[in-house]
């Protein structure tokens, strides 16, 4: 029995800072995905929403909120929350429902409206809350990404210019993407001139938060065949593994890693794609295109190695050689990545899959990766959430 489902529709509301309700972005993305699939909203039997925690109760029950906004039509509903991996968990819930034979076609949907300014912990003296503690002693979000970036410089010899190259590449990729928020061809000089935030990372090395919405229509292979879409891209794997003790890298909001005195230190990021490759029965050598979570420019280089697209420490060389540009051996973030989008948490993992869907169909226009057959995503969020999805055609 096949473990695959088909993606017959993809839609996105453009990313930005629009200041409207998240529901509007989601509905627009869903309608685009439905039109793309060529099916009616009434054909959808299962709505799998990714929750947002910043928009009140409607956000906690996002699946139902979107279903109501699209017009109650009796579909079953689910809502998933898994930080940055919420969209992948929502996709996994839809896949489980379809593979169990309980639904033929599902809508997977996520959207967010982000507040202005920086996210800060809740007020008051709360020494039991690790998030409060780390802010109290001066450890902010960019600290963690900067520590990872500096570690690359120290052990692999990466440079700040390498990190700037990631930004310049992704800016060039996203320049023609109508869904991207930042569409400007930045230069190395632009990055170097931006303010230092957390050495070695400058303002243009770290990603912003955005409003946005993304949706997918997924279905059984039988259903796809029945409506004449037997060749639609398929979901070949969804990995949402948790870390394995002892987790080796210090993660937000912690002040320390696990102690590895009795269990070997493990890399969580590397574990995510490992499970995905295993599930899909393919290897990194089969991958034509990757969409990875570049919360910072340097983190894209870490992901390339975690996806096993190159050996540890070789990512910057691949980048310098142009291998990760569109037209190169293994393009990374042809959408422009978070560098061009900013992060809209519950929509972002779905947006990664939207991009791969268009890439595998050959519909990506100027940012098309020629002959893309297999695509992989990777992301990681707080509290042991992460995902890696493989699409193939």
């Amino acid at each position, binding site marked *: 029995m096949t473990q695959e489902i088909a993606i017959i529709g993809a839609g996105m509301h453009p990313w930005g800072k629009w200041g409207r309700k998240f529901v509007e972005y989601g509905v627009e993305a869903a309608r685009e995905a439905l039109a793309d699939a060529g099916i009616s909203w009434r054909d959808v039997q299962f709505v799998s929403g990714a929750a947002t925690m910043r928009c009140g109760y409607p956000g906690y029950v996002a699946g139902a909120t979107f279903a109501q906004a699209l017009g109650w039509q009796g579909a079953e509903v689910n809502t998933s929350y898994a930080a940055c991996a919420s969209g992948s968990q929502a996709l996994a819930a839809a896949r489980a429902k379809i593979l169990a034979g309980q639904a033929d076609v599902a809508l997977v949907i996520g959207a967010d409206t982000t507040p202005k300014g920086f996210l800060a912990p809740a*007020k008051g003296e709360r020494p039991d809350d690790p998030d409060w*503690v780390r802010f109290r002693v001066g450890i902010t979000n960019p*600290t963690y990404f900067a520590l990872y970036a500096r570690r690359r410089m120290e052990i692999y010899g990466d440079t700040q210019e390498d990190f700037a190259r990631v930004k310049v590449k992704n800016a060039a990729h996203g320049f023609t993407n109508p869904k991207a928020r930042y569409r400007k061809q930045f230069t190395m000089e632009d990055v170097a001139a931006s303010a230092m935030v957390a050495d070695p990372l400058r303002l243009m090395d770290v990603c912003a938060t955005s409003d946005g919405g993304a949706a997918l229509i997924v279905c059984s292979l039988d259903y796809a065949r029945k409506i004449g879409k037997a060749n639609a891209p398929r979901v070949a794997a969804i990995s949402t593994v948790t870390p394995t003790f002892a987790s080796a890298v210090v993660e937000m909001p912690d002040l320390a890693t*696990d102690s*590895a005195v009795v269990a070997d230190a493990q890399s969580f990021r590397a574990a995510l794609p490992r499970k995905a490759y295993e599930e899909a029965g393919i290897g990194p050598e089969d991958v034509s295109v990757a969409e990875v979570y570049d919360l910072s420019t340097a983190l894209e280089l870490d992901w390339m190695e975690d996806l096993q697209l190159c050996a540890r420490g070789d990512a910057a060389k691949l980048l310098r050689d142009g291998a990760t540009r569109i037209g190169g051996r293994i393009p990374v973030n042809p959408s422009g990545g978070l560098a061009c989008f900013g992060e809209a948490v519950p929509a972002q993992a779905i947006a990664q899959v939207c991009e791969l869907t268009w890439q595998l169909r050959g519909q990506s226009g100027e940012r098309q990766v020629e002959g893309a057959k297999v695509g992989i995503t990777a992301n990681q969020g707080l509290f042991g959430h992460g995902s890696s999805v493989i699409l193939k055609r």
Partner: protein
Amino acid sequence: MSDGLKPVIEGFFTTGEKPALLGSRCVKCGTFYFPKLEGFCRNPDCDCSQFESVELSRTGTLWSFTNACYKPPEPYVAAEPFEPYAIAAVELDKEKMIVLGQVVSGVGVEQLKAGLPMELVVETIPDLAEPEGKLVWKWKPMTEGGAA
């Protein structure tokens, strides 16, 4: 220097001549935790729920480092005008864990390099209620032959 000054968070570190971070150690499997852990051991192969309070190693090796160029949001209390400070991630050999902390004032990222031996010290950081500030743990590069 620490006479009469309060720690920024109670129970996280000792003060005095040779300050140390306070962690816990599982009495069954020996895994260390910082900050202190109550409840259940997080080693998936250990079902213990008893911990002893321990002082963590006072010295370690610099794993990575960065700085804060902008004033962090509350609850951080910054001096005016804001002075950027460096931050270190230090690997403790015995505990096999990495612990974060600010670097002592006066030491910037240009003076740091992965692999440097680092020592735990206590310094003050500004506080809203205490005009003299409160005590916090910081990491300090160990100079040749220094830091016994």
